[in-house]
């Protein structure tokens, strides 16, 4: 007997008939050849979220982004005209990586007036134009205007910087579609106190999205994090979402989340009671505009028990908006079929007092405790999937977004193969 209303078809999964209900083939997470296809079919053709405008506050502010999955590195920089642009991080002379320090594979950030190559001192303007060539007269008919940095599509939605390696891709706003439109206006720009976590995960990138795209696991895997009586109750009841929505290729789940603040303080740990904060964020909503009347896409069914909306923007970006007024992002950057870099950032309205900062610290530290449990479970999953003893796995109705993710991935690969065959 569901606690929350399901669609007329009887389940969320059947509501999206194209998904089917049969077990899902997970060879897409172990097959090296399939991973190579994903690079071209997905990561070189879709909009990838690489940062926030706050990371490039001034003219000349830049950061680099390693995209192993697309065999490149990018520079994202704010130009003299205030525009944010992205370029392949490569000197046009002989292909040396243009911006890096000490370790060629590591990301860097900073501020500069021009980019100067370490190798032969070719210099590039912030808009990518080649400005200076060392001993230019030694070259043969070198037209500097033809040797600017290779630009990459770069567009901004609500302060989130996205890039796309496909010059022919539809605009970002079209790609983000209905979800993008209906979240617009959320006060992201007010939430600039950031905690960023990073980890190398020994599992396919989709497995971590799987982990965070369902809350079915929460009462079990994270059982010990709730106080005893509460953990038993949670496990007995299990998990049901308030609402799911798929807007191909993206998906979202809207969830209850009664711990912020909890109905009864006895439900949470002693330190949470004192600091009024925890996994679901600080209990006291910050005083900024835009949180009382939320955009229509946030808490879409306007449920009074609403706690968090979790949006998955295909392929590898998740955005979680929490009822107490903060947000969380996840990015999963594949490095091989069985590994990826996981990045997560928590964004709060900046603490006014030292006490508020302490409440944020508790939320951030709690996130890490959960994240570590999730991360290690993934390695355990990858190890066994690799055996390929079994390839098909049953997914339940609360795992709708996983079913959608794997199908969408396969659809992109199929479309790519069909296109290149023709």
């Amino acid at each position, binding site marked *: 007997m569901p606690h929350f209303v399901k669609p007329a078809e009887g389940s969320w999964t059947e509501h999206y008939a194209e998904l089917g209900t049969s077990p899902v083939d997970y060879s897409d997470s172990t097959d090296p050849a399939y991973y190579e296809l994903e690079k071209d079919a997905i990561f070189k053709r879709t909009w990838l979220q690489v940062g926030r405008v706050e990371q490039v506050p001034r003219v000349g502010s830049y950061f680099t982004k390693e995209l192993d999955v697309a065999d490149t590195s990018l520079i994202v920089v704010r130009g003299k005209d205030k525009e944010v642009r992205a370029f392949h991080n490569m000197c046009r002379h002989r292909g040396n990586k243009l911006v890096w320090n000490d370790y060629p594979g590591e990301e860097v950030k900073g501020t500069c007036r021009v980019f100067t190559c370490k190798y032969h001192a070719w210099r590039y303007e912030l808009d990518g134009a080649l400005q200076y060539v060392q001993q230019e007269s030694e070259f043969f008919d070198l037209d500097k205007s033809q040797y600017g940095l290779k630009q990459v599509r770069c567009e901004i939605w609500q302060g989130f910087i996205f890039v796309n390696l496909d010059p022919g891709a539809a605009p970002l706003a079209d790609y983000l579609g209905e979800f993008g439109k209906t979240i617009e206006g959320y006060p992201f720009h007010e939430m600039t106190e950031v905690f960023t*976590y990073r980890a190398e*995960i020994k599992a396919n990138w989709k497995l971590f999205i799987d982990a965070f795209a369902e809350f079915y696991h929460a009462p079990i895997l994270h059982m010990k994090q709730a106080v005893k009586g509460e953990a038993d109750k949670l496990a007995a009841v299990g998990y049901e979402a308030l609402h799911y929505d798929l807007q191909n290729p993206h998906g979202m789940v809207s969830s209850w989340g009664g711990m912020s603040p909890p109905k009864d303080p006895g439900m949470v740990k002693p330190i949470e009671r004192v600091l009024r904060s925890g996994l679901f964020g600080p209990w006291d909503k910050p005083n900024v505009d835009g949180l009382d009347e939320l955009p229509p896409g946030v808490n879409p069914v306007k449920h009074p028990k609403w706690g968090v909306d979790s949006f998955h923007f295909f392929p590898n970006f998740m955005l979680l908006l929490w009822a107490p007024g903060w947000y969380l992002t996840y990015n999963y950057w594949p490095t091989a079929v069985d590994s990826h870099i996981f990045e997560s950032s928590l964004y709060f309205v900046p603490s006014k007092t030292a006490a508020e900062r302490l409440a944020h610290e508790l939320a951030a530290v709690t996130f890490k405790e959960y994240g*570590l449990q999730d991360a290690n479970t993934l390695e355990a999953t990858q190890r066994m999937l690799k055996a390929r003893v079994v390839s098909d796995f049953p997914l339940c109705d609360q795992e709708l977004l996983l079913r959608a993710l794997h199908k969408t991935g396969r659809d992109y690969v199929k479309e790519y193969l069909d296109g290149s065959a023709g």
Partner: protein
Amino acid sequence: MAVQANTGQANTGQAATGQAATLAAATLPAEFTDLAPYSDWILPTERERYAKRLASTMEQMQAFYDVAFPRLEAANKYLENFPLADGLPEPERNLLLLMMSLVMVSFPIEVWQQPRVPDSGAAYLDLIIEPRV
């Protein structure tokens, strides 16, 4: 690298670069000088606080928790009076950092009964950007 857990009897005369504040001399606000024996927990970054947690025994963390937790409510109330915008005075900053370490040990003490997250094995999750205090 193991972090030497001690009882607050740090003997460094001067703060080594990058290791600021783990000094016995670290001052706390007058109302909270009873926490001075635990000033080795005054650490400026999450990475250092996490490393100290992993390098500590449960007994060491329990001793810190037993003294610091009963003072948390008062400390939190006290810290409400200090805006971050202008930068915190040194004693208040130390108190905040000390209470951040209390947050850090609260999981081993209140939840796990061990320093590490159970079943977290070799997994790590590094905080690479944190708001400056």
